[in-house]
């Protein structure tokens, strides 16, 4: 049983990865170009005019945030677009008629989102080396935050894909929820620089914890308690994984 599930998982994962690398001009190149522009414009042109934050240059401060931003958006967009197009073309039925358990379907699609998110995170990190020599304060936190954040946003993308009925539906959440929360999540500034009210409000934004924790891995500075961040990510992982399983079991958006 477990061996069969493993074969099903590797089949979905292989399909997802083939897709990511087959259309690399759509999946891998644009985010790298976009983040490079952020480095040049915000880090280089504007950042050179700004004072240091917590003892680091502005470029060094925003680099982990930009890497995390690319992990978040790409993990999400990969699962939402892949799962929705599978639904749209109706080849989701290939999986639904098979004995593949729901948890294998979820992990298979998540593996695709994480592969793309982490791959782009690595590519953007390499690009950042052109602009700045980033310190590595603690690699454990870098890997842990990247892994858990990618997992959470891959799941969120899949949930969006499950509910989506038309192509417009897969861009609403990224445009109106994820992008604002990411920009307000401390990519470009430390929330400690905000007035107290906005600091408190920012702490209700889960992306603040992801970016701060990831930045801590590089620079050793954080706006939040690291373990609170890890705890939140684990909680989100469990909640969203359970919700995705529940939606698949109920057949929401995939069975009539």
């Amino acid at each position, binding site marked *: 049983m477990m061996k069969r599930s493993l074969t099903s998982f590797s*089949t979905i994962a292989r399909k997802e990865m083939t897709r990511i690398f087959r259309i690399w001009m759509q999946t891998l190149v644009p985010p790298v170009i976009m983040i490079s522009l952020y480095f040049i414009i915000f880090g280089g042109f504007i950042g050179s005019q700004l004072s240091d934050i917590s003892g680091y240059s502005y470029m060094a401060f925003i680099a982990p945030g930009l890497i995390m931003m690319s992990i978040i958006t790409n993990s999400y967009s990969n699962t939402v677009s892949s799962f929705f197009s599978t639904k749209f073309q109706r080849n989701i039925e*290939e999986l639904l008629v*098979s004995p593949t358990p729901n948890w294998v379907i979820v992990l298979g699609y998540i593996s695709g989102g994480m592969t793309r998110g982490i791959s782009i995170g690595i590519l953007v990190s390499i690009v950042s080396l052109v602009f700045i020599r980033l310190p590595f304060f603690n690699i454990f936190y870098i890997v842990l935050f990247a892994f858990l954040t990618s997992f959470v946003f891959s799941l969120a993308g899949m949930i969006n894909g499950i509910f989506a009925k038309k192509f417009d539906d897969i861009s609403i959440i990224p445009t109106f929820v994820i992008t604002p929360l990411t920009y307000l999540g401390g990519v470009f500034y430390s929330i400690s620089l905000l007035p107290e009210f906005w600091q408190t409000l920012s702490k209700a934004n889960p992306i603040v914890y992801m970016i701060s924790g990831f930045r801590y891995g590089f620079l050793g500075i954080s706006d939040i308690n690291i373990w609170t961040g890890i705890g939140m990510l684990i909680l989100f992982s469990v909640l969203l994984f359970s919700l995705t399983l529940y939606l698949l079991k109920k057949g929401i958006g995939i069975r009539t």
Partner: protein
Amino acid sequence: MFALSISNLHKTYKSGLKALSGVTLNVQDGEFFGLLGPNGAGKTTIIGIITSLVTKTEGTVNIFGMDIDKNFSSAKRLIGVVPQEYNFSIFEKVQDIVIQQAGYYGISRKEAVKSSEKYLKKLSLWDKRNVAARELSGGMKRRLMIARGLVHEPKLLILDEPTAGVDVELRRGMWDFLEELNRNGRTIILTTHYLEEAEQLCNKIAIITKGKIVENTSKREMLRKLDKETFLCDTKEVVTVLAPLENVTFSLVDEKTIEFTKNKSQSINRIFEHLNGQSIIVDSMRNKTNRLEELFIKMVK
């Protein structure tokens, strides 16, 4: 042993549409079973429930004695399905589609490659194995779905209008292939709009209309229910006048074609004797209409 046993199946969609109203159906292991019905009768809903694409409102479905709710995994492994509409990724290569399907059934890649080769060759798609599915013709796409439905060697194959939109030659080829599968012990359930297809292939036939089974019997028994038959005869010489015969209706389609309708209980020899008596020589004879079609129209009215 029943390959498929459906009991008291109901389905009401969220829209309120009642698609099935207490369908009970048994298909014996090894049968070639035809499920016929007009559009919207509930055929595809039944297949959807068996393959878990549609959630049932009430009822039970057993595959080779296994309840699909209780033995989800084992029961599904025994079913292969060929849907009515194309449902594969058009961007993927033909062989990849078939191999992936095997993978979803837990078949190792090595075995899946072998099995995909076997069925792609049988269905004359081997030359197209590296072609993206979108480049296939309509008939090839249908064959691809059959190969995909068979790659995990199911004991029960369900085909939902597999020959819709397929040309005559290809349809005949598919019939031969399906008959061979059935001869080799596979149970086949077929829904079709082509009643000629059901008459040719199936040994048992059920007719469904408005979500209810209105007939479920052997093909032989069903055809026996027809009380009249119409034949067309091609004659050697030109015929201008035909003498009447009791309980038989004659008409001339053209100068060398006679049409007659007789009661099923009547001997056809009597009609030939009658034609011989008028020095009319018949070269060939055929059924005018599909026999099953007549019965079907009566039943679904």
